[in-house]
């Protein structure tokens, strides 16, 4: 528990440092407009990374989350352009995401296939589906109905932020206060033992894929609201960003331990770095390098730090 607290404090400190450094080197960074833009750019990643946290806590992973969001965004965009009522538009995203999550869950859990390989295949399939759905052309110039809804500031914060806070609160409650959460972490710790204990391993694993899919669908609403277009390459790198943010946030790769606050801060740090580097004149092509490098750096430093503390403890004992 203390370790998790340490991780989150470190991340918050890193975010603050990054903001200070970028603000002093790039004058455009520290403006209120830019800081709001960083928050706004984090919306869809926050939701996707939330689902990824659950998956990774369970010892699974999904590299197709970006295109699942893309597929939902495509449906939402078509519905918006087709003039469907707002309620239907809002329902389509999460519903489509949940259905796709169910398919992924069935393939991984019933087919007993490693999640990363199965979702890599699904990534290819969904990319093609998106391309065919778009007919090779971008969907652009969508109406700003969703944009106004998400940025609606009637309560004390924009509605979009409230939705994200609500989703995090719901997942947190589910993790801490319901059997689902306890069982999820038990599966992440040791799946074979969880099965021997009589937990409904198959049902819980499929349900988690459905939840993650629904969150990706919800992220699709945010994507359409903020960018108001759907491109053929939509969501190509989001899976990497989500995985990096989750690992950055202190969720164990093998499952069994997770931190929602850590994931929130991990996403924020990633977006601050991307925005700051861009404003300092680093071409956007370097973003993948930075994200991939950060992911590896965290992995390596975790192992090295773990070994150091282990050897220190050994020395104290002797």
């Amino acid at each position, binding site marked *: 528990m203390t370790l998790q607290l340490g991780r989150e404090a470190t991340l918050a400190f890193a975010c603050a440092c990054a903001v200070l450094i970028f603000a002093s080197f790039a004058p455009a960074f520290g403006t209120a407009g830019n800081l709001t833009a960083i928050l706004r750019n984090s919306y869809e990643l926050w939701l996707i990374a939330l689902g990824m946290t659950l998956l990774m806590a369970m010892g699974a992973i999904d590299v197709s989350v970006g295109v699942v969001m893309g597929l939902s965004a495509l449906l939402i965009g078509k519905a918006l352009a087709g003039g469907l009522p707002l309620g239907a538009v809002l329902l389509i995203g999460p519903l489509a995401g949940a259905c796709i999550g169910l398919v992924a869950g069935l393939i991984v859990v019933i087919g007993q296939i490693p999640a990363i*390989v199965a979702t890599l295949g699904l990534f290819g399939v969904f990319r093609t589906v998106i391309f065919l759905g778009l007919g090779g052309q971008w969907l652009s110039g969508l109406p700003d109905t969703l944009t106004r809804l998400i940025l609606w500031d009637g309560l004390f914060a924009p509605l979009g932020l409230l939705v994200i806070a609500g989703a995090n609160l719901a997942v947190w409650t589910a993790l801490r206060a319901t059997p689902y959460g306890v069982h999820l972490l038990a599966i992440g710790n040791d799946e074979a033992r969880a099965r021997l204990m009589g937990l409904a391993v198959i049902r819980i694993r499929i349900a988690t894929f459905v939840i993650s899919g629904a969150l990706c669908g919800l992220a699709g609403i945010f994507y359409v609201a903020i960018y108001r277009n759907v491109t053929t390459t939509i969501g190509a790198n989001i899976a990497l960003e989500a995985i990096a943010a989750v690992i950055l946030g202190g969720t164990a790769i093998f499952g069994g331990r997770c931190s929602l606050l850590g994931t929130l801060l991990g996403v924020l740090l990633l977006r601050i770095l991307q925005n700051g580097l861009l404003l300092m004149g680093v*071409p956007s092509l370097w973003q993948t*390098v930075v994200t*991939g490098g950060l992911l590896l750096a965290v*992995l390596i430093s975790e*192992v090295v730090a773990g070994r150091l503390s282990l050897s220190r403890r050994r020395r104290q004992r002797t």
Partner: protein
Amino acid sequence: MKALRDNLVLAMLIALWVGLLALIAVTQPDILSARTLTSVLQFSTILALVSIGLGLVVLAGGAGIDLSVGGVVSLSAVLAMLAQSAGMPAQFLPVLCIGIGLVLGGFNGLLVTRLALYPLIVTLGTFYLYSGLALALTGGAALAGVPDWALAFGRGKWGPIPLPFLTLVIPVILLALLIVLGTAWGTWILAMGNDDRAAHLSGIPVDRVRLVLYCVTGGLAGLAAFVSLAWLGSARPNIGVNLELEALTAVLLGGVAITGGRGGLTGVLAAVFLVVTLKTALLQSGINTVWQTGAIGLLLIVALLANRFSLSKG
């Protein structure tokens, strides 16, 4: 029993391949020609080199996988060309490609063996790192300037068979088969795949074997990078895109168990031909290339499900 299963996989692949050819013969008869054979073998060269390495890594178990192979191919090609334009003599081009591949693969191997990190996550990270670097260093543009002798090799043919296939793929596959079937290393690899811990306890240098396998995969990817240079005449930063998907499909379709310890390289090679024939048929029928990704992805999932099914029966 094991031999029977391997033969079954091979027979199934050949049956699928013949079926695909028959389908092409009926629907698009003008595609079947010596030129198409050359192009299939040409595409197979890169995929076969990468798949052989990946197949060995997966065979050796321990959750072994290398998702970064496509990134290694792109980055080796780009870095070697950059070195050449920085003044390195052109005759070192092939050596440099392989050398860079070895180093990149060795980095994966060190992280997996020395730091005991999970291969999936490590190679996912290096996949983005390597392919991102290849794109960022070139700004997305292809680097021209491949020497003429390399082009002559890359585009040369012996009958309908491309020279790179004849001089690289065939020796590499023969060597790999010899090592897997005829040396202690082959036994070690299969033993590790069956039970990593038991292999370690019986004195097999598990970590060293695994490190070498990741290096070999990187080196073969570097060789594939040189083939792409010599064939296309330029270093394209996106040459490795989707290669990990195709190689993984070939390895699993070829009957290698994702958990390691079961399968063989002949199946992988047969699967490479199947995948490339499918791709070429789609390409030459004038169907949009985006279909290829979807078809390969679907094939991967089907291969996995079939793999699982045959395992539970066996």
